[in-house]
């Protein structure tokens, strides 16, 4: 019985790895070696770095990568603090009408992002932050706040309120209690939220398409999408190399922090 289960999982797992196999072997082919008839047959990996270089440079992945790195680090960092502050106000400070505020913040993730795209575009142009890195950081932060507030509120609910009362008794202000006691106690939850949101932002396409144009502002997934359509500029192996290149950071992050992914998913049921 156990053996049968393992056998099914292994077979299915191998099928699941086929697309990655095809991607890697063909991303490593020089365009002279690439052809439909030999698409399943690997060559040596010598072409891989050549194709990476082509994708980075001529495919402009490098410029997108810089922006995306900034977005995927700064925005979740700000969002997780802003979200934790809201969670703290709701759970520990027992702000009036706490549940209502909580629902208002959380519900901001319920509707699809399509519902805000056009006004954001119009507003961004109006205010002069369309096609700027600041504008992108801002929207990625805002998009991440509700989930962050949701998870942190759930997490803080698990901290006994006596902790807060004891700190207040010792004369600690709310700010001190938040930064010196609650945040350090929640490191793993904060990290889980950060990783989930960083991955989400790293992989975003739609906001990048809608709110940016310049190669130095556009996030990397937008660049990849553009690369794919301009077949004149990039050969299939180079496009695949680009796809592989932009996927590596999130795959590595995911492999090394899987525990936090699971925790974040469980805390947010998301």
């Amino acid at each position, binding site marked *: 019985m156990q053996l049968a*289960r393992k056998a099914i*999982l292994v077979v*299915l*797992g191998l099928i*699941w*790895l086929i*697309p*990655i196999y*095809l*991607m890697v072997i063909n991303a490593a082919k020089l365009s002279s070696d690439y052809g*439909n*008839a030999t698409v*399943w047959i690997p060559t040596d990996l010598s072409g891989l770095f050549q194709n990476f270089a082509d994708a980075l440079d001529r495919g402009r992945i490098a410029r997108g990568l810089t922006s995306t790195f900034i977005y995927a680090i700064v925005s979740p960092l700000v969002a997780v603090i*802003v979200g934790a502050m*809201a969670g*703290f*106000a*709701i759970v520990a*400070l027992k702000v009036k009408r*706490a*549940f209502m505020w*909580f629902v*208002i*913040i959380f519900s901001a993730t*319920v*509707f*699809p*992002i*399509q*519902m*805000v*795209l*056009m*006004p*954001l575009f119009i507003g961004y142009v109006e205010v002069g932050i369309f096609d700027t890195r600041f504008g992108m950081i801002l929207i990625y932060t805002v998009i991440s706040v*509700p989930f962050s507030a949701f998870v942190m509120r*759930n997490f803080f609910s698990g901290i006994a309120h006596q902790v807060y*009362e004891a700190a*207040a008794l010792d004369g600690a*202000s*709310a*700010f001190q209690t*938040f930064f010196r006691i609650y945040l350090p106690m929640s490191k793993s939850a904060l990290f889980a939220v950060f990783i989930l949101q960083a991955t989400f932002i*790293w*992989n975003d*396409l*739609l906001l990048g*398409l*809608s709110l940016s144009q310049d190669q130095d502002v556009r996030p990397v997934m937008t660049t*990849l*999408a553009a690369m*794919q359509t301009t077949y004149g500029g990039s050969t299939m192996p180079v*496009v695949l190399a680009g796809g592989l290149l*932009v*996927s590596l950071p999130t*795959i590595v992050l*995911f*492999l090394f922090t899987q525990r936090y992914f*699971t925790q974040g998913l469980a805390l947010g*049921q998301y």
Partner: protein
Amino acid sequence: MSIETATPRRQRFSRAQQERVTATAFLAPALILCGLLLYAPFLYTSYLSLTEYNGLGDPEFVGLEKFGQLFQDANILTSMLNTFMWVVGTLVLPVGLGLMIAVLAHGLRGSFWFRLPFLLPYAISGIAVGVIFAFILQTDGALTQAMELFHLPFAESRWLLDWPLNTFVMIMAATWQGAGVNALLFGVGLQSIPKEPLEAARVDGATGWRLFKNVTWPMLAPMTTVVVGLSIVGSLKTFDIVWGMTKGGPGRVSETLAITMYKASFMMNDYGLGAAVALLLTIVTVTASLLYLRRQLAPAKEF
């Protein structure tokens, strides 16, 4: 509590007041950000859906005309049908397979390694998944080559060019990406099932399928609700994979509502129509969200 009785009345009042100010200060950034960049745009889109507007001049109020247009435009009707196919397909494939993988891997030694191949694609972006599968499914591409090698029928299918085949294969691509995370969530659900009822059922002679159907499945229900809710909501918003594989084409046959909204607003400059599509999508999504949202908000009743 003891501190309050010990503090003089006047001071206690000021402390309570001070706490309220502090609490507001902690809450304000999240509320202001969400209000300005999510709720205000939400309201403006609702308004735009009642107007004719191309970005120049002022929006002109036209009532429900744009919503009428939604149900007359053949392209948008196809888009609705495709979106429906995405919702149903996602419920059958990634959710069903995710459950199967979770059940098969549950309790196995080294279950992490057995689940790993399914989890890897989850970290890959929708557009990169699109790049991989557009490559595999291109005319005379890797899939066709493999099928010809084994002399399988339909090897010559135009995977991405014919409707509804293109929507179907894109759902397969989404399955490749999404089954693993469903397996992960179902795995968490399986782990939280208490051992006693399972043992009791085993003592009573239940095994295999009957054990699963009568004990495991009912006890997994809370997690199933979450996974099903997330899948419906997620599939309604399908954009990236389609953008990466067909851009909604050829023509407009493989569009989803999310793609239709983007094209109407940003490529055809019909802001009113784009807003109407967005609002329709929102109504359906929010209705579907209520499925699992009720559960998510349930523990908060203590307030």
